[in-house]
């Protein structure tokens, strides 16, 4: 579904992504783990076209969308749930969703999303800034889904959320997976990633250095953690 090949991205003189290769198969959840500053967020921002990559390919069902403007990437079927959620603070919950609804949704209609996220249903008229962190995260996911995307980029969804809310979030992500949504999940929270992902990848210094199923990952976890993830 989504395939990244040899992606290089620079911020000015610094070489952030140094040849990222990653494949997210249809209907699967692929998680990318890694320390702060290794290029996880830059990876999704490069896919979205928010930071144009300098070289490499981003293939969406075989079509190379690398370097496209963000709105064209979105229209091609890539939905973006950014780090920090970036809800529109002065728009109501419904208005936030409607910004993402470019044409009437067929699969993820507003009604269905409000049924999936009962807390948003209750707060439909509230402004974005009035929501809790967990509610904002659900809203950011709803705003992405309403475009009926082919693939969803989820950047650090658990950031700043209480453990109970993270558990709820894991349930939501699993529900989406069961509905056939393809997800690229960027996480620092290994528990969440392990709980929901079909594949785990580890990023170090702008490259993907490890990839495995959660079972294999668990068997090798102690060694992997020591080698790639602890500071």
């Amino acid at each position: 579904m989504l395939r990244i090949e040899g992606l290089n991205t620079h911020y000015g003189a610094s070489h952030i992504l140094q040849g990222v290769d990653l494949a997210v198969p249809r209907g699967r959840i692929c998680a990318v783990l890694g320390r702060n500053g290794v290029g996880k967020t830059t990876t999704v921002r490069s896919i979205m076209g928010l930071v144009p990559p300098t070289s490499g390919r981003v293939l969406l069902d075989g079509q190379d969308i690398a370097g496209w403007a963000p709105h064209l990437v979105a229209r091609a079927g890539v939905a973006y749930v950014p780090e920090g959620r970036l809800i529109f603070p002065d728009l109501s919950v419904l208005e936030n969703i409607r910004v993402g609804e470019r044409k009437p949704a067929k699969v993820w209609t507003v009604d269905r999303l409000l049924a999936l996220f009962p807390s948003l249903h209750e707060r439909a008229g509230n402004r974005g800034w009035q929501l809790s962190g967990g509610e904002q995260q659900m809203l950011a996911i709803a705003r992405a889904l309403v475009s009926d995307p082919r693939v969803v980029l989820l950047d650090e969804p658990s950031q700043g959320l209480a453990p109970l809310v993270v558990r709820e979030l894991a349930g939501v992500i699993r529900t989406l997976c069961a509905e056939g949504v393809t997800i690229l999940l960027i996480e620092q929270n290994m528990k969440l990633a392990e709980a929901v992902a079909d594949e785990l990848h580890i990023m170090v210094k702008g490259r993907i250095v490890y990839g495995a199923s959660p079972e294999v990952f668990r068997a090798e976890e102690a060694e992997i953690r020591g080698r790639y993830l602890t500071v």
Partner: protein
Amino acid sequence: MAGRPLSTRGERLFHCSRTPRCGRPVSSESSAVMDILPFLLVQCLNALSQAALLFFLGVGLTLIFGIMRIVNFAHGTFYMFGAFLGYSAVRVTGSFWAGLVLGPMVAGGIGAAFELGLLRRLYKRDDSAFLMVTFGLTLVLGEIIRLVWGVNALQVEVPDALSGIVFLLDEPFPVYRLFLVASGAIVAVGIWQFLERTRLGLLIRATSQNAEMVHALGVDVNLVRSGIFGIGCGLAALGGVLAAPLLSASLGMAGNAIIDAFVIVIIGGMGSFPGSLLAAILVAFVQVFGTYYFPDFAMAAMYLLMLLVLVVRPGGLLGKEA
């Protein structure tokens, strides 16, 4: 009410305002109230008609700032441009109403084209680039206006339907100023409904909060920017067309207008639509009543108001805290 001959004015004033009516005993206090009421009404309506013109000026500038985070220095020039376009539209078509439609459309189209052709290339630069380019536009557009229309002030006739006088509490009042009050109210409600109820209005509000996020949600924010720049310039031109019968179209309009527009935007809060409405009304009342009670300080009153607002609420009355 309309169409009463002006010549009866003094006589009517004398009879109605200065003497108790209908033989009813009226105490001196309430007669003072009777005197002040018509005066207050007329001055308030004057202020509201002034507020309408200021609102047309300020709202476009504040919408543009809210979306694009740039200060459009050429805004006053678009207002002046509107006055001249209105003059020509009236000359060519013979209809003030045609000018009211054509002026803003032409100015708005030129504004949008300017955004598409020039401003768009500068978004990655720093803010001074916008100041330079929009200031350059004031010079170019001002010069084009001088070449096309000449240096003399051009009088625009008030259309017949609006040229009369009405008596309000027996005070005469020009119908045209009432028309200004009404158009201000209609446009304010129109913009409000446009922002609240249309898809483009929603996108404008969202873009003013986080343009990059809107872009990543599949919206071509560059189109939203061109649109809002055109709408803002069109609104300034609408103000110019409406102001022309009062002030006549002249090359001096732009300078005063841009200052008024900045004051409105600063008092109301940069990027706030309701703020621009509130600020226009406040400034107009300060100007009108200031001119009456403290004629020597009338010009300063507006700036004192701005100073006060900046001290108490640096982000403007309804703006985000700066």
